[in-house]
């Protein structure tokens, strides 16, 4: 795949000539914090999963820039449709980490009440729309939300994140097409990590790049170095401003690499060698840290202190998450409809009558993918 990549920081962490981040020192450090937090959370959750303490996890190691750089470009009133591989976006957008951990334990403190698998978050307060497993479905929903924002004359825009595999979905096609025709204030963010489970990008599409797909929908498509958090921020910010100004949608391709397994159930050695190794050197966190150090915004001491702080925070969240009880039996029957209809009430009551309320979790069950 060809075409130039937008960059702001060089691969060795130098500021590229003529490129300015347009962010304050605090903001830059804040972004670094979110990226590191994401990485540490990842490591911890994968660990918990290996120990059988949570059922499933989706790591995003190596993709932190694409998550935090995009998140930084949005305003509070904007709506974001995340994918399952963007914890950093949640953290940067201010979601409390213990709420994310609660979701992974599926306990009663989980805002989704343990109804979905881990990492299928929903945070209405931050306008972070409910994630589901089927790939792509949220892309057209994002277009619809953007159409609604335009119709209501609101100031917000909508952003949606999906992967290279997601571009093959039906709803990528309709989402891009609807947004294009409506000139809806929508930013389409394709994190091209070059793999859809075991399927490499060349088997996903014959198009020259993912960005070029924008041409089919009459919108600009831009290819960005997805491991350069400031390039991601810059491109997303411009696309967001364009949308906010009423100039319509944009597609961004954020080029990065899925360094880890697809999920805790996946074994990538089955389908790729040690390709991932070459991407270790391109680590987005290291690159940004070097940049901050070059700018005298970061030091070894600060790093150590931050690591300690973040780990303690994660520890506390895990402790809290693991000790919370599972959701009550009623929660299986509520929220199917706004009000529980008689036939569901009857099912609930029969269940309680026949089996009581003390169902212990099944220790043998494990998610195989």
């Amino acid at each position, binding site marked *: 795949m060809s075409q130039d990549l937008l960059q702001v920081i060089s691969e060795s962490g130098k500021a590229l000539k003529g490129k300015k981040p347009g962010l304050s020192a605090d903001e830059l450090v804040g972004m670094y914090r979110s990226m590191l937090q994401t990485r540490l959370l990842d490591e911890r959750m994968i660990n918990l999963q290996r120990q059988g303490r949570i059922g499933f996890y989706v790591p995003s190691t190596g993709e932190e820039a694409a998550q935090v750089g995009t998140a930084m470009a949005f305003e509070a009133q904007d*709506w974001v449709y995340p994918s399952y591989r963007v914890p950093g976006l949640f953290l940067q957008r201010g979601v409390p980490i213990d709420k994310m951990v609660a979701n992974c334990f599926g306990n009663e403190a*989980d*805002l*989704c*009440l343990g*109804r*979905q698998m881990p990492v*299928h978050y*929903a*945070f*209405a307060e931050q306008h972070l*729309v*409910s994630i*589901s497993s*089927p790939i792509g*479905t949220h*892309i*057209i*929903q*994002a*277009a*619809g*939300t*953007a*159409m*609604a*924002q335009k*119709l*209501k004359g609101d100031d917000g825009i*909508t952003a949606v994140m999906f992967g290279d595999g997601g571009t093959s979905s*039906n*709803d990528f*096609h*309709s*989402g891009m*097409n*609807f947004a294009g*025709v*409506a000139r809806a204030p929508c930013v389409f963010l394709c994190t091209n990590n070059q793999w859809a489970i075991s399927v490499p990008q060349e088997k996903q599409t014959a198009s020259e790049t993912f960005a070029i797909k924008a041409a089919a929908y009459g919108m600009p498509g831009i290819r960005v170095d997805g491991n350069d958090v400031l390039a991601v921020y810059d491109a997303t910010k411009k696309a967001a401003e364009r949308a906010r100004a009423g100039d319509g949608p944009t597609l961004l391709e954020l080029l990065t690499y899925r360094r880890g397994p697809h999920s805790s159930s996946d074994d990538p050695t089955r389908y790729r060698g040690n390709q991932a190794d070459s991407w270790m050197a391109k680590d987005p966190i290291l690159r940004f840290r070097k940049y901050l150090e070059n700018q005298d915004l970061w030091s070894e001491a600060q790093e150590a202190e931050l690591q300690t702080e973040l780990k303690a925070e994660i520890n506390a969240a895990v402790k809290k998450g693991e000790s919370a009880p599972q959701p009550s039996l009623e929660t299986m029957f*509520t*929220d*199917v*409809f*706004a009000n529980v*209809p*008689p*036939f569901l009430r009857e099912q609930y009551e029969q269940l309680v009558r026949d089996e009581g309320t003390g169902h212990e979790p099944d220790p043998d069950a494990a998610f195989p993918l």
Partner: protein
Amino acid sequence: MPEITLVQAVNDALKEEMRADDDVVVLGEDVGVNGGVFRCTADLVDEFGEERVIDTPLSESGIIGAAIGMALYGLKPVPEIQFADFIWPAFDQITSEMAKMRYRSGGQFTCPMVVRTPYGGGIRGGHYHSQSPEAYFTHTSGLTVVVPSDPYDAKGLLKAAIRSPDPVIFLEPKRIYRAPKQDVPADDDYVVEIGKAAVRREGTDFTITCYGAMVEVAMKACALAAEKGWEGEVLDLRTLVPLDEQALIASVTKTGRLVTLQEAPKFSGYSSELSAIVAEKAIDVLEAPIRRVAGFDVPFPFTLEHVYMPHAERVLKAVEDVMTF
């Protein structure tokens, strides 16, 4: 009260709700200047503009998916699918997304929206302009499924559906879109409650369950049965989910005999659920087998449509079966 057709009733309901609530929007193929291929959205674009009456690209998953995104944001979209037969590209959005949104997000996000679509046979439309897909939706937890059988209900139920906090599949029996006309209240506050069946004819000897265009067929069959001295009760279900189970059990308890009637293919059809409920909860009141009259288990034909569609004489045969068991 004005005398109107079912098409006009749908149109009136949309107009009234759009006037009352700026958040109500209509979208679909040809719903704008063309007013819908059946004219259900006629003139809406003139009154409410292209922003609220949206001609979309040709994509049903796009229509429903975009509507979901609108609903999540706070609008009340009323998407139209041109024919129910074309709803399948949107089935993923309907079953995986719209139906489960409230549940999976712990009530944080909801999809108050109404998917309107003409369904059913009787217009010589062949495979793809005739099907009755209700069973696919009634098996999908989280969906409310409504089927009016006359203009009065069409208007009142559609208005109630638009005001519902839950996603509603609203199936319009296209065979009776234009006849017969009926007096329908012009009152803004007029709604028909979702979840209540209607007894269209009282009887003591047998019950026929039905909905949509089949109500008329059931009424005719009862008229024929009455000539033989058998008085049938016609239960128009109106809402398929949540079913008015009480009304069903009450009627069967009274008559002791049940004939179910639907246009859709028989096997695994909606009426099978009615049989199952009665066989589970009221089997002791039954004086005869439950007979099902339904479409045949074949794709909807073109030339032989008139043979395919259940008609009064066919229902009468079933009535004879249960009455002479």
